[in-house]
Structures are given as structure tokens and as C-alpha cells.
């Protein structure tokens, strides 16, 4: 052990030297040094040690680089003038995130030229994502420092230089007899499309084809729109304009098309205030529960087949021809009719006919032009499910001789089998992947693309809304941007940056009138990251064979039978598998099931109860019974996890797990179920008939919230704990404090002998609107990245040791078979009477003069008394040296099923490369230290410093915490409640505001606003005891009587 530390010491020493030499001689006369960083750091026989040296080197070098426009060309920071890059001061670069089919308008926060955080762009420059962010975008920063990244071009296993690669491939392309196929996911960059086109032309007519394929397919809706509108595109959905929303199996708040945007728009119409006492009505008809369904005012729990029939029923109702067996659906239909023109029906099905019916419904309701508009359709989903089979046929028939894979991993995420074998037939297979994936493994060349943070690019997520991507760091490895490569191969001179500029000048500059002079236009485009061009026309509804579609849908529903059905869904965390190599996302608890690091079979607790699966896991080890799920011949074995709201006999399994080619074995958790999707007229359908049987085995699942019996009915129906409070819109209109009546009493009763402390300066406060929060988890990941919160790995999560400072609690209320759900972000409540502070023997945690409960890490001796005495259990202890903050043993000293050895390698953000993501403003906590939410005190201090420099008082909104900035719905409001004008102050004084367990007089500085549901029927808001379903059933019967 000791000598290992010794060597580590050496490395650090030398790395430091790298810094020192540079720090010593800065700027101009040293510029020649830059040549060495434009040199890839991993060429030659350089060891890991040298590589580290160069990392330290490139970091500092990037500072200089950015300041003298050398490798980054002309890049204009968002807030700061380039020459102002000073150590310790963050620079923000407007850029655009488009990865794995997710688009987001972002700012890249860099420190000393090192990107460390992705922030959403302000609304005015984020016309699509509207200042919101997603967990995936937040976590994506880690992929820049991913150990799985290719560090240079490869032929098979062997490393080659770009010269060799260009030469060999260039020759091959000339000599090829057959077609060249560029296989990618949807490309939304106009300039990249141009590059691809040019490359195609350079190969000659008929010699090139560009196939687009999306792992999560939207082919159904695209084809449907082609039929009804003549455009194979997806129109814009305006949830903010809708008063009645009916979602049919469409998780539009979590994963569907543009969730970040939809979450924002949806929330606009869900928030309540003194001025705005009305909200939209949301009915969700779905089988496998999603956060969208859980947020709905009325959730109609049906089987996947009934999702289809529901569409038909709705169509019949709105067109005045018939009704549904399900009363709730009839009611929904009536409500839609009542809200013609301001209603909205969305279907998540990938069945063309289903989407045709959905279009027909919306048309009948006159929603086109109001809640659905064609002026700015989405470009983000254009893939065709036929692409893979087309490719395979081409390869087998020999017509396709070369395949280039760009941002696509069909070998993993295509239900069609045999691609890997077919690729062997090709003469040339190239993958441009920058991280290891299954397709890259199957190709004979890997020509790694730059990471998007190292690249120039543009993007057009919606028609006429143009975004720019600019590099935020000099490239870390010997990689080359795909566009550059293609330009080279098509014999073009000049860099992609030049091409980009020309392309914009030629195609976009003319279309706008704001700026005159291209440079002004271009500079602003890059500084703002976005320009808006006039909307490009619309489309008119041409119907198509609706009657045929209706009968086809009914047939499809019938085909699913009436017994057990399965639905394969996209998980919020890992999407189509593109993200499953991201530790942050793997450790993000699924909002619905609270499971991390795995996929599993979702089932109804009642069903499990009847069929002898343990509903609540054996909480001792979080062990779940394993079930064998069989879908037309193929089967998969996964643990069965109960999720209330799932209809009996319905099962759900998440796509995107079970990756084989990943950097760390722990990232390959779960099983790949893409193979179980069924093809229906060319499109992949995510629902199917299924059978399930108990294997008798059990599996540990890293679930972060298990369900114990929490009500006290056994003790004569004592009232349940009021952790969350909710009411209905009807009640709210009568009394704004509805559901929160007991608070007045509580505040009255909290009296004290001691005089209370005064907070004359700032008094930091947070208010979270439970009505707006949809539990998506973006805030959790944002917090992790901002505050260097360690990733601990599956084993530790199973041991209930996840380190998240901010978690999202999920509570069920109402009936066991179809409960209401409340999501409650839970973080340090910064109590003014903090129980944790009193008990720390060494005064390591105490109260700041601004009402913040603060931790002095280097004073903490780790007695854990504070964590024990925290009523909210938000304090986290460093059980191991998770983040290599100290020279401790890097292994776990315990064993369990996942780690049979007594001592096992630690998994975390501890490798030198991944540590580059750490935020230098936040201490990396050492082993044996307690940590918790600090209200992003580093941001508050920064903001205060700014105000001071500008010699003014702090304005509301100057200081924003990480979770708040990430939140798409604006559910989290933070500020100084001594500032009467501050938004947070009004919320703080709102009748809906309440603190959690205030009755013990902790005086929290975090308050919540009651959840309000827009519906008449009352429900008993007891937190659900679904640990005993049989008891709940009895209870429900009693109520009915």
C-alpha cells in the first residue's frame, strides 16, 4: 500500500511542476509552447504519467490558448471577454448540447479552461428548452472525462495515426465497388448535413446513402404525420396553451420528444398564485406508471392494449359516435369536447395507426394551429426503423460495401438481429464513436470524434431556430471531428469551422434582419448560442384513412389479448443506452421506482401479492424475487419490483441497460431488452403479449426508497404524518390554505424560552412548489456535479449509502391500485433551530449569520451524531475515501453478493481523468467526514463578491443555486427573504407554504407549496400503506360501504 501512495506522490509532484512552469511564464512570449498542446497528448510512447502531466499541462495551456485565440480560433465567451480568463474565475460559453437524440440550449461553465458544469441558457436564448435542463444534459459533462473515450484512431485493436487512417480509407473509398452508407442517429446540424451531402457527392452519384436511426423510435408518429400532413416531421406541442391535456401512454414530462421543453410549458399552466387561481386539467391514460401519469390530476390506469382502445374510444366520443366502457374515459372525452381548440391529446404509441387516430382526435377538437402548430416542427426525431434492416439487406446483398457509423450504436440498440455478422461482409466499416460502444467494437476502424465540448458545430432543433456549438476546451486526446474527417475525405480544403461560417453566411445570414454585417450576426450567434429565423410555413391536415386506422388499432389491441402484457419504456436516466456508461445517471434513482444501477420488471403490487412475489423487498438486503419474462419466444430474467398504479397483469421493463462494451464492468448492469421489441409494418412496437414465471432466484436491487408500513391504523387510525400536503383546485379556490390548515396551529404552538437569533443581513430561503415539481431528477444531477458529490456504486447504494445531497422523496396517497403520487425534493432544510448543530462536539457544524447551516469539513471528526439527530436524514457520511481526497486504501473492506471478495476495488469518480470534472470551488470531502447541502454557498459568496465589485446591493436572482438553475419547471425558488421584493419572499408568505415536520420547531429555511389537483372528487390524503395491500383493500371496501 505504502509504496503505491509513494508513487502517487511522485505523479502529483510532477503534475504540479507542469502547472508551476506555466504559471511562472504566462502569456505572449510563451505562445510557441502551445504547439505542444495542439499535439495530441497520447502520441508516442508516453506513459500514463506523461499523460497526467499533459492533462495538467493542457488545463493551464487552455487558459492561455483561450486568451490568445490560438487553437480555439475566434470564440466569444458569453459573459466575459476572453482575455479576462483569470484563475479562480469561471467563464461561461454559450453552446449547444445534442447527444443521444436529446437537445438542450446550454452554457458551458469553465474554470481555468476546464469545462466543469453544464448550465441551461437563459430563456431569451433558449427558445426551445426555455431555460430548463435535463438530468442527461447535466450529467453529460462527465462524458468529456470518460475513461471509455478513444484516445487515438484505431485499426482493430492497433493504434494508428490519422495520416495512415486517411490514406488507407481514402484508397478503399476510391476502390469500392458498392455503396457507402453513413449510419447515424437524427442529425440536426444543417452544416453537418451539408458536409455529409458534399461527401456523398464526392463519392459520385448512387454511391452514397445516409441512413438515420433513433434507438428510441418515433417512426410511428413521423409516418402518421406523413400520411395526415405530408410531412415526415413532428409538430410543436404547446402545453402552455392547453387547458385540458389527455396523455395516452406518452411520458411527455419524462422522455417523450422534448421533455425539458414540455415540462416547462406544462408547469406554466400548473402553477398557482394570488393572481392566477386556475390551472390546466391533465388526464393521463397509461399502463406502466410514468412521472407524467403520477403528476396527472386523474390517472386512468389501463393495460397497454387499452391504451390503444382508449384512443379509439376518445375518437368516437369527440366525433360524436359512441362511447367507452370505461366511465373515466367517457368523462375525459366530454372534458375534451368542452375545451375545443384549447385541448391537447398526445399518444406515445409507435403504431402508425394509433398516431393517425390521435391526429384525427386533435383535428376534430380543432387543436391544430392552437395547441399543436406546424410553423416550427421538430428536427430532433427523423430516424426510420427500417434503416437497420435496409443496411443489413444492403450488406448481405453486397450492394453496400462500406459503412460509417456516426453517433449511433445499432449493434446494441436495434431489435433487428444479425447486424454484427452482416458488417463482417463489408469491405470497410468505420465507427466515429468517441466512447467505446458495441458498434465500434464490431467495426474494423475507429476514428474517434471530438467530444462536443471540443467541437464547432451548429444545430436546428426546431425549424428556424439555429444554435451554435463552440469548443470550451482544447481536445484532450488525438481525436478529430467527424465533419473535418468527411471534409478531408471529400477532398475539401479548410477546416469545419470555416465551412460552418461560410454555410451560415450563405444560408442563414440572408434570412434575418436583426444584424447587418455577417460578423455582427455570427459573433452574436456564437455569443448568444442561438438565433431565431422567421417561421417557415405550416402544414394542413389531409386526414388519411382514419376509419382504416381505427379498425387497425382495435385489431392491434385485440392482438395483445386480455391477459399479461409488457411495455418496454425509455428510462429517464439512460435513454436508449447512450447514457448507461454515465455513473451520475446510473446512480440517479428512477423517479418512479427509486431504483438505481439496474433495470427490472415493473409489476403491480397487488399482482405480486397474489402471486407470491415479495412486494416490499426483504429490506435486510433489498432482495427481490427474480421473474422470467417471455415475449414471443425470447425471455429475460430480471428482479420484479412493485410499482403502485401498474394494472394487474401488466409489466414494464426499461430499455437501455445491459451494455456490453463499456469502460467499467459496473456500467454494464441490467439486461438489454431491445431484442424483445416486436416489429409491426416496419416500426418497432414497445408493447407485447407476455408471460412471466418465478425463477425462485433473488437479486439485490439498489433501491433508495423502500416501502415500509408507515400508517398507524393498527393503533386505532391515528392520523398519518403530514410530510406532504395536498388539496384539490376546488378546495384551493375556497381557501388558499386548503390542505395546509394545521400550519397556523403549529406555528402558534412553537414557542421557545430562548430569544431567537436575528438575521439582519441576508436570510437565505428556498421554497419548492410541489405542484410544479415532476420529480425528473435534473436537480439531483446538477447538485452532484456542482458540489462534487461522489458516485458510490451499486454495492454502496444497496447498503443505503448513496451520497446525494438532494433526493426526491416520493409518497403515495389514496387507493393502492391507482394512487396519487407526490414528489418532494428533500435537501438540508437549513433549520434555524438545527438539531444537528447542537450535538456536534467539535463545533464542525453551526449556523451562519445568513441562516445557513454550514459544515466545516476539516473540523469534522465523523461522530455521525449530527446525521442521527437530523429529522430529515439529509446528512451524508463518507464511509470510504470515495473521491480519493486522501491517501487511504482505495478498496472496500466488506463483502456482499455483488462483491464476494472481502476487499474489493472501489468504484467512484476517483480516476485522475474523471477527477477533472471536480468543481474547484467545492472541497472534495475526505474519508470519515460528514457532508450535506450547503445552499451552494460558493455561488452565494461569488454573487456577493460580484455585487461588491459593482458596488451595489445583491439583487434577487443574482445568487442562484445549482438545483434551481437546472429545474425546467421553476419549481425551486431561492433567495433572500429579508428582501421584501424577492420572489421567494412572496412564496414564503403564501398560504400554501409549509415546512416539513415543523411541529418539532426546527424552523426550516426550506418551505414547500401544497400540491393542488384539478379535479372534483375528494380523496383521503393519508400517505399510502401499500406495504400491506390486503389491508388497503379492506380499507377501500370499508370506504365504499
Amino acid at each position: 500500500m505504502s509504496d503505491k501512495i509513494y508513487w502517487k506522490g511522485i505523479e502529483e509532484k510532477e503534475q504540479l511542476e507542469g502547472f508551476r512552469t506555466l504559471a511562472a511564464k504566462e502569456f505572449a512570449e510563451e505562445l510557441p509552447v502551445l504547439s505542444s498542446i495542439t499535439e495530441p497528448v497520447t502520441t508516442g510512447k508516453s506513459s500514463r504519467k506523461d499523460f497526467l502531466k499533459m492533462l495538467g499541462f493542457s488545463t493551464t495551456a487552455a487558459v492561455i490558448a483561450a486568451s490568445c485565440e490560438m487553437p480555439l480560433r475566434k470564440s466569444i465567451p458569453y459573459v466575459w471577454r476572453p482575455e479576462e480568463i483569470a484563475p479562480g474565475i469561471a467563464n461561461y460559453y454559450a453552446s449547444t448540447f445534442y447527444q443521444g437524440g436529446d437537445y438542450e440550449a446550454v452554457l458551458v461553465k469553465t474554470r481555468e479552461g476546464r469545462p466543469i458544469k453544464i448550465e441551461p441558457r437563459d430563456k431569451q436564448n433558449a427558445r426551445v428548452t426555455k431555460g430548463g435542463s435535463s438530468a442527461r444534459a447535466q450529467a453529460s459533462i462527465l462524458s468529456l472525462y470518460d475513461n471509455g473515450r478513444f484516445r487515438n484512431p484505431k485499426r482493430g485493436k492497433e493504434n494508428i495515426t490519422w495520416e495512415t487512417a486517411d490514406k488507407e480509407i481514402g484508397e478503399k473509398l476510391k476502390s469500392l465497388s458498392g455503396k457507402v452508407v453513413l449510419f447515424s442517429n437524427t442529425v440536426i446540424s444543417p452544416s453537418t448535413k451539408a458536409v455529409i451531402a458534399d461527401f456523398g457527392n464526392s463519392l459520385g452519384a448512387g454511391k452514397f446513402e445516409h441512413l438515420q436511426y433513433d434507438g428510441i423510435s418515433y417512426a410511428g408518429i413521423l409516418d402518421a404525420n406523413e400520411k395526415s400532413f405530408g410531412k415526415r416531421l413532428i409538430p410543436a406541442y404547446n402545453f402552455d396553451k392547453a387547458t385540458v391535456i389527455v396523455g395516452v401512454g406518452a411520458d411527455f414530462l419524462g422522455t417523450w420528444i422534448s421533455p425539458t421543453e414540455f415540462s416547462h410549458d406544462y408547469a406554466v399552466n400548473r402553477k398557482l398564485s394570488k393572481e392566477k387561481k386556475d390551472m390546466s386539467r391533465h388526464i393521463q391514460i397509461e399502463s406502466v406508471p410514468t412521472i407524467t401519469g403520477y403528476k396527472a390530476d386523474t390517472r386512468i390506469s389501463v393495460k397497454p392494449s387499452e391504451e390503444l382502445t382508449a384512443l379509439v374510444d376518445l375518437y368516437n366520443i369527440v366525433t360524436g359516435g359512441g362511447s367507452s366502457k370505461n366511465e373515466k374515459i367517457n368523462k375525459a372525452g366530454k372534458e375534451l369536447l368542452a375545451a375545443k381548440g384549447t385541448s391537447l391529446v398526445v399518444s406515445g404509441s409507435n403504431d402508425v395507426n394509433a398516431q393517425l387516430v390521435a391526429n384525427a382526435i386533435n383535428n376534430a377538437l380543432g387543436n391544430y394551429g392552437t395547441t399543436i402548430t406546424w410553423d416550427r416542427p421538430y428536427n430532433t426525431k427523423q430516424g426510420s426503423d427500417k434503416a437497420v434492416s435496409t443496411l443489413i439487406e444492403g450488406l448481405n446483398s453486397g450492394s453496400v460495401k462500406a459503412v460509417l457509423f456516426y453517433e449511433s450504436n445499432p449493434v446494441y440498440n436495434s431489435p433487428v438481429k444479425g447486424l454484427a455478422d452482416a458488417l463482417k461482409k463489408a469491405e470497410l466499416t468505420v465507427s466515429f464513436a468517441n466512447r467505446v460502444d458495441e458498434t465500434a467494437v464490431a467495426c474494423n476502424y475507429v476514428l474517434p470524434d471530438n467530444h462536443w465540448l471540443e467541437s464547432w458545430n451548429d444545430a436546428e432543433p426546431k425549424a428556424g431556430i439555429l444554435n451554435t456549438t463552440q469548443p470550451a476546451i482544447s481536445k484532450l486526446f488525438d481525436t478529430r471531428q467527424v465533419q473535418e474527417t468527411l471534409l478531408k475525405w471529400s477532398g475539401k480544403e479548410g477546416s469545419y469551422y470555416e465551412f460552418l461560417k461560410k454555410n451560415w453566411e450563405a444560408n442563414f445570414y440572408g434570412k434575418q434582419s436583426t444584424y447587418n454585417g455577417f460578423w455582427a450576426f455570427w459573433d452574436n450567434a456564437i455569443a448568444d448560442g442561438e438565433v431565431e429565423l422567421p417561421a417557415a410555413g405550416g402544414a394542413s391536415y389531409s386526414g388519411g384513412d382514419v376509419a382504416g386506422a381505427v379498425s387497425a388499432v382495435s385489431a392491434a389491441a385485440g392482438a395483445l389479448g386480455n391477459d399479461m402484457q409488457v411495455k418496454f419504456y425509455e428510462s429517464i436516466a439512460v435513454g436508449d443506452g447512450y447514457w448507461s456508461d454515465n455513473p451520475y445517471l446510473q446512480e440517479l434513482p428512477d423517479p418512479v421506482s427509486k431504483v438505481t444501477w439496474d433495470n427490472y420488471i415493473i409489476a403491480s403490487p397487488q399482482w405480486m401479492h397474489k402471486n407470491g412475489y415479495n412486494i416490499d423487498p426483504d429490506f435486510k438486503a433489498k432482495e427481490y424475487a427474480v421473474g422470467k419474462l417471455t415475449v414471443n419466444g425470447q425471455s429475460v430474467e430480471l428482479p420484479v419490483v412493485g410499482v403502485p398504479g401498474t394494472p394487474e397483469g401488466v409489466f414494464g421493463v426499461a430499455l437501455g441497460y445491459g451494455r456490453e462494451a463499456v469502460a467499467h464492468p459496473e456500467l454494464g448492469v441490467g439486461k438489454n431488452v431491445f431484442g424483445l421489441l416486436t416489429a409491426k409494418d416496419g416500426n418497432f412496437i414497445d408493447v407485447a403479449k407476455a408471460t412471466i414465471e418465478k425463477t425462485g432466484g433473488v437479486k439485490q436491487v439498489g433501491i433508495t426508497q423502500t416501502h415500509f408500513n408507515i400508517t398507524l391504523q393498527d393503533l386505532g387510525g391515528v392520523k398519518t404524518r403530514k410530510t406532504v400536503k395536498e388539496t384539490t383546485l376546488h378546495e384551493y379556490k375556497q381557501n388558499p390554505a386548503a390542505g395546509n390548515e394545521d400550519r397556523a396551529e403549529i406555528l402558534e404552538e412553537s414557542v421557545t424560552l430562548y430569544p431567537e437569533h436575528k438575521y439582519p443581513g441576508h436570510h437565505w430561503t428556498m421554497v419548492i412548489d410541489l405542484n410544479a415539481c415532476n420529480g425528473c431528477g435534473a436537480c439531483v444531477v446538477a447538485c452532484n456535479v456542482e458540489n462534487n458529490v461522489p458516485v458510490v456504486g451499486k454495492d454502496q447504494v444497496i447498503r443505503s449509502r448513496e451520497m446525494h445531497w438532494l433526493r426526491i422523496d416520493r409518497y403515495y396517497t389514496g387507493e393502492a391500485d391507482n394512487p396519487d403520487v407526490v414528489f418532494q425534493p428533500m435537501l438540508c432544510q437549513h433549520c434555524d433551530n438545527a438539531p444537528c448543530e447542537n450535538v456536534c462536539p467539535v463545533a464542525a457544524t453551526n449556523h451562519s449569520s445568513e441562516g445557513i447551516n454550514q459544515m466545516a469539513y476539516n473540523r469534522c471528526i465523523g461522530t455521525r451524531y449530527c446525521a442521527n439527530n437530523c429529522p430529515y436524514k439529509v446528512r451524508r457520511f463518507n464511509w470510504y475515501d470515495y473521491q480519493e481526497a486522501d491517501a487511504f486504501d482505495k478498496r472496500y473492506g466488506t463483502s456482499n453478493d455483488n462483491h464476494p471478495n472481502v476487499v474489493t476495488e472501489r468504484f467512484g469518480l476517483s480516476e485522475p481523468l474523471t477527477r477533472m470534472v471536480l468543481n474547484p470551488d467545492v472541497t472534495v470531502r475526505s474519508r470519515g467526514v460528514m457532508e450535506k447541502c450547503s445552499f451552494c454557498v460558493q455561488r452565494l459568496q461569488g454573487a456577493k463578491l460580484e455585487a461588491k465589485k459593482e458596488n451595489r446591493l445583491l439583487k434577487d436572482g443574482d445568487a442562484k443555486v445549482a438545483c434551481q438553475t437546472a429545474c425546467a419547471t421553476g419549481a425551486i425558488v431561492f433567495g433572500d427573504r429579508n428582501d421584501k421584493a424577492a420572489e421567494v419572499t412572496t412564496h414564503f408568505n403564501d398560504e400554501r407554504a409549509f415546512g416539513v415536520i415543523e411541529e418539532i420547531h426546527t424552523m426550516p429555511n426550506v418551505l414547500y407549496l401544497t400540491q393542488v389537483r384539478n379535479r372534483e372528487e375528494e380523496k383521503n390524503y393519508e400517505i399510502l400503506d401499500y406495504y400491506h395491500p390486503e389491508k388497503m383493500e379492506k380499507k377501500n371496501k370499508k370506504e365504499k360501504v
Partner: protein
Amino acid sequence: MSATTATPNKFVIGLWDHEEVYLHAIEHIRAKGIQIYDSLTPFPVHGLEDALGYKETRLHTAGFFFGATGTTLALSFMTWVMTTNYPINFGGKPYWPVPSFIPITFELTVLFAAWGMTLTYLVRNKLWPGRVPRIYDKRTTDDRFALVFDAEALSEADITSIKDVCKKEGAVEVKDKVFEAGE
């Protein structure tokens, strides 16, 4: 004790085997005006100090003052730290949380009293590691009760008379003991 200033080396020792007899012996011997140099017993014999006419020890009084020191030290130090030297807001408690001081104040009182007294006890009893005492007779820590008479200044006649008295008073053994100076 002995009137002579310099430590005597020549002694007469009487040994008893029953504390009751021993106690009466002391009374009678002292009544005769014979100086008893020292008396050794294997365990604390009740009433021995009265029989020998010793004054009550002031050890416990010392103990009280040691305790008082502890109390004041604890209270004043904690007050200074919490209110003057570095006042910190702990969980909304006042800077001078008197109730919180009670336990530590009490403990320090006891600590000081106990240690102070014990150290005084050791000093006054001339007890410290490595001290080599004069053993007049090995069995005084076992089963014999001894009276020691300073024979330095006494004439042979007096010595014999003392011996006789002891025998008369039930001593099971009477003997001479001479130490070398400095032993």
C-alpha cells in the same frame, strides 16, 4: 510522638494479636504516661486514633476547596469561550446556554476534588512510588497490632518496665529493634 528531633533508631516493640486487647493496652499505657512512638495495625482499627489521642484530620476540608476550584474554573472558562472568545450560533441556542454547562461543571468539580484530595493524602502520608518504609515487624500488615516505643533516650530500667507493662497488657511478643541510621 517522639520528643527528640532527630529520627531515632533504637526501639522497643510490643505486638498484640487482638485489637480489643490492643486498644485497652494503649489506654492503660498512655495513662501511665509512657510515650508511644508509633502504632501499626493490619487494618483500620476503629477508635484507635481516639485511644492515641490524635486530632481529626483536615483532609476533607482540603477536598472541599479543591472542588470549589473546579466549579469556578469550569463555569468561567465555558462562559468566556462561548460569550467572549468565539461566540457561535449552535442550533438557535443563546450564546450563553447555562443549562448546557451544568454537566461539565459538575464533572470538573468532582475531578478536582478527588485528585486534589488524593494527592494531598499521598503527600501527608509520605506515600510515593519507591519509598522504602521502616518495617518494625513484618506481621503488622498481617495479623499483629504493634506499639513502637522510642528507646533511644531511655534507660535500661525504663525499657524493661515498658516491656513488663506490655506483657502485662497482653502483648503476645515484646522485642527490641535497632535500625542503622538512614535505613
